[in-house]
């Protein structure tokens, strides 16, 4: 073999490997996107820009809810180097096992991505930690926004702003682990307005995860949109005063401006300072509130479902007048054989019956509506009659959530024929079975917001605006839904007799609500006492004032306190006086309420 030919073998080997490299280059670079994705995963990072959450003001423009910073201690496991866990756990004031658990969990989640090691460190504590943090590579503080409540009032209305749980994250793709979400009240209803929109920055990071530059000069970046500020209809001073009056009592206070449906104050007692649920102590405080036997987290004003008692007699009067079952002049004997009564009266007309809260009178009134004798069978008669009655009642908003903007309303119960069919069987009940409804007892359940709304309806003589707490969202004003009046179907003229009677209840010597009297203000009200055997009765009172130009409608419900006139009425009165006059003429009246204490059992 000619040795000179070996040059071709050697050259061939060289070209052969050149081709192998080319093929390999092609397979790495061109034929698949696998390595492109890998490189992007390593070098590109999305940095979320959190907009600041909208602030919340009261109707006078007083700042109720502001933002403040809090810190989460984060760790990127890949960058964490062996460290003195004992010293670090002492620095964090964290149990060493919890620290180790958190680190292991973080490692399991991702070696490259940050996980929360300790949540919600208050700025003072974090300042102390930050000084030492350089000794612990891989750890850093992530600032988060939490709420700060300037007045510490209205916890139930404002709601909670806390870390989104797994179900929230699953339901709303906007949120990711560690994000916060409004969990109740206004924070929840107006979450999308308050939160604004997160922005996203795409950046290139180096191997130490330090941000180096924007990706593609920020072409894919989106900027954050600030959350809208909210102005509420709440009057912070009135709210604070109402909370003070309700101290050491169980129950609720709801005050509405009748003409607009604006909720001026909404109290559920016992309440709590919303600042308790912010920051490092949230966990323990939340647990304590949850385990409290008096259920401070429970919003009685919208979730408490009570039998309304005597205040319901006004509703009966109004729909009976409208359906022409009675007229203001209708007199009915106080026949205490069927149903008990109180006071000295025997043959009242409508006005007298309301003032005296005559039970037999309203037993008859409802019978005329529910069992009018249209059908020979009293069972069928009552069946049709009750459904007719039910529809009229519902137009007052009972059995509905009133389309309010406070979430989680319990609608109460307004029974219809189907309801009793289910209990007793078809044609197995008649009016005689269900007459307790006539005086607001029996299966009837109403929440305190609906009671206040009833006062507003009477104040307006026949209509209401859906009660709401939103005054304006950012610069957008009030949502249209809250500016559309809802009509009850009862004509204004039928209200005169009821309103006059309600005024007498307060003004007349011997009226059940004389404790609600205010010098120089025409207050109209109605007491109720809801039986609660064997425990003390619940005391209930609804009112509005002034009579001819109503500015405020109120419901007060005080559990286990006895007669409605004794406790609920003066509380309502003080609230009205405070709102209209801005001062209390008789401090002893206030003192009496502040010192009272009712805790049920």
């Amino acid at each position, binding site marked *: 073999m000619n040795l000179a030919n070996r040059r071709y073998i050697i050259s061939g080997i060289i070209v052969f490997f050149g081709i192998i490299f080319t093929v390999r280059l092609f397979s790495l670079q061109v034929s698949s996107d696998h390595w492109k994705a890998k490189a992007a995963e*390593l070098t590109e990072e999305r940095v979320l820009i959190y907009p600041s959450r909208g602030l919340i003001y009261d109707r006078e423009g007083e700042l109720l809810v502001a933002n403040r910073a809090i810190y989460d201690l984060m760790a990127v496991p890949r960058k964490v180097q062996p460290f003195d866990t004992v010293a670090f756990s002492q620095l964090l004031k964290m149990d060493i096992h919890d620290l180790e658990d958190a680190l292991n969990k973080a490692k399991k989640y991702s070696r490259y991505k940050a996980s929360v090691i300790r949540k919600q460190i208050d700025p003072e504590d974090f300042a102390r930690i930050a000084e030492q943090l350089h000794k612990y590579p891989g750890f850093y503080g992530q600032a988060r926004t939490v709420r700060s409540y300037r007045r510490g009032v209205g916890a139930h209305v404002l709601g909670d702003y806390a870390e989104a749980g797994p179900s929230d994250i699953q339901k709303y793709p906007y949120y990711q682990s560690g994000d916060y979400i409004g969990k109740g009240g206004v924070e929840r209803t107006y979450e999308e307005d308050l939160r604004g929109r997160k922005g996203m920055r795409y950046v290139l990071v180096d191997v130490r995860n330090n941000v180096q530059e924007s990706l593609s000069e920020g072409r894919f970046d989106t900027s954050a949109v600030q959350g809208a500020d909210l102005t509420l209809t709440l009057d912070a001073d009135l709210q604070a005063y109402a909370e003070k009056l309700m101290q050491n009592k169980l129950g609720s206070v709801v005050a509405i401006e009748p003409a607009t449906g604006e909720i001026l104050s909404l109290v559920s007692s016992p309440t709590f300072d919303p600042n308790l649920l912010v920051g490092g102590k949230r966990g323990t405080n939340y647990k304590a509130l949850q385990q409290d036997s008096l259920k401070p987290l429970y919003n009685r004003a919208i979730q408490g479902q009570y039998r309304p008692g005597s205040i319901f007699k006004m509703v009966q009067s109004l729909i009976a007048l409208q359906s022409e079952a009675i007229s203001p002049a209708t007199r009915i004997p106080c026949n205490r054989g069927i149903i008990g009564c109180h006071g000295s009266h025997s043959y009242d007309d409508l006005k007298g019956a309301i003032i005296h809260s005559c039970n037999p009178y309203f037993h008859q009134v409802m019978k005329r509506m529910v069992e009018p004798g249209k059908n020979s069978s009293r069972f069928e008669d009552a069946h049709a009659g009750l459904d007719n009655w039910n529809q009229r009642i519902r137009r007052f908003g009972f059995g509905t959530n009133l389309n309010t903007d406070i979430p989680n309303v319990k609608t109460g119960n307004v029974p219809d024929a189907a309801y009793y069919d289910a209990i007793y069987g078809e044609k197995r009940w008649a009016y005689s079975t269900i007459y307790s409804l006539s005086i607001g007892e029996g299966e009837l359940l109403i929440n305190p917001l609906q009671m206040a709304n009833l006062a507003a309806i009477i104040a307006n003589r026949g209509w209401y605006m859906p009660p709401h707490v939103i005054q304006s969202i950012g610069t957008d004003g009030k949502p249209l839904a809250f500016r559309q009046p809802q009509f009850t179907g009862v004509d204004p003229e039928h209200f005169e007799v009821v309103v006059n009677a309600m005024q007498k209840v307060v003004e007349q010597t011997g009226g059940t609500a004389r404790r609600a009297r205010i010098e120089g203000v025409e207050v109209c009200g109605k007491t109720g006492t809801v039986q609660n055997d064997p425990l003390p009765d619940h005391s209930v009172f609804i009112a509005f004032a002034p009579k001819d130009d109503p500015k405020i409608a109120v419901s007060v419900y005080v559990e286990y306190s006895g007669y409605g006139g004794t406790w609920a009425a003066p509380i309502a009165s003080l609230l009205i006086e405070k709102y209209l006059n801005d001062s209390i003429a008789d401090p002893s009246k206030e003192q009496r309420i502040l010192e009272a204490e009712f805790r049920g059992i």
Partner: protein
Amino acid sequence: MNATRRQDIRRNIDWVTIGLYAVLVLVGWTAIYSANYDPAQSEIFKFNADHGRQIIWIGVCAFIALILLNTEGEFFIRFSVISYALVLILLVLVLLIGKKVGGARSWFGVGSFGIQPSEFAKTTATLMLAWYVAQAGSRFKALKTRLTAALIIAFPAGLILLQPDAGTVLVFAGLVFALYREGLSGNILLFGFGAIILAVVAILTGASTLDYPLLGEQSGIFALLLGLILLGGLLIFGVRGFTLPRYRPKNYRFVLAVLIASLGFSYAVNYGVESVLKPHQRERIYVLFGMNQNPDADYNIRHAKAAIGSGGWTGKGYLNGPMTRYDFVPEQHTDFIFCTIGEEWGFFGSFFVVALFVVLILRIIALAERQRSQFSRVYGYGVASILFMHLLINVGMVLGIAPVIGIPLPFFSYGGSSLMGFTILIMIMLRLDAERFSVFR
């Protein structure tokens, strides 16, 4: 030396090679600049940064090239033995008083600059080999001469292995191509390829365990050995069935010898990997075959592949490769410099660089072939072999088809010794080539 002759030399210099060399050095420098690029300090002549220092080295190399091109070829021939001996002494010295960098004792430190004698050993060994083969002439057919030639390569290679620098040792093994051209049996190359394949299979089977009948769980290497014995047996039957009786004894001996050699070799490779190699070296081999258990072991090569693979057809643009610029790729300005090309210039750029190297190597082979003197030819093939081995190991490594062995990419990787070594290697060849008409040796 008269004026006419000087002119002849200038005219006879192979400007194609000079051009290829210049392009590679320049492209290499832009890659180093990019690998160290910092927008805040983008100055080119920044002599405390790698790309700035490389400019100094390029200048020094241009000066060296000028001197070498103006040196009589005869000088290199006479100088070969002396330079070989000198570098051997340096290689011994570096083992004794060298600076330890990255686990290997291969540097002489001079201030902030260091010098690596192994980079020059490649040139001197090639010169020595060329001189020896040329003066041996027709005696090269003798086994003794061939063994001496092998020793000339093995001696510096052995000293370098002690540093240890396995990559450079492999480069020395490439000189076998030059010897093959001079008449070494082609079987050497075949055996070489066979050995590589057998080694791969031995590593793969050795790393797995099999459940043998009777013996239970044992290393898979025994299955390979068993397979080889069976294959040998078959071949012996084959010899009996298909060859004439008078050739049979010779064939039997051959098959038997190959079988025994294969068995020994397979077992030795397996033993070497399992018991001699250090854990990190073993890991690199396992990474290559995708058998590693340690997720961090293939970190370097994964990132290198991601850098190159993310380049696509045309790359991300010069100075725009985040993988290489933001330190995801290790040793990105030295051993892994090819990643910068792959990421920023994509498939086209990478192919262009590989093609430049292949063309340069083929050009040098063409130069070697046109020499009248055997010295020049052997030397030329040596130069081509060394360049080829560097390309093979370095690019093979960053592409993930060769194990991670630290070895520079000629002209590209940052480093004065490396660039100087390759400059000297090539310029001597160009001077020898320029004299090809006037010399009869």
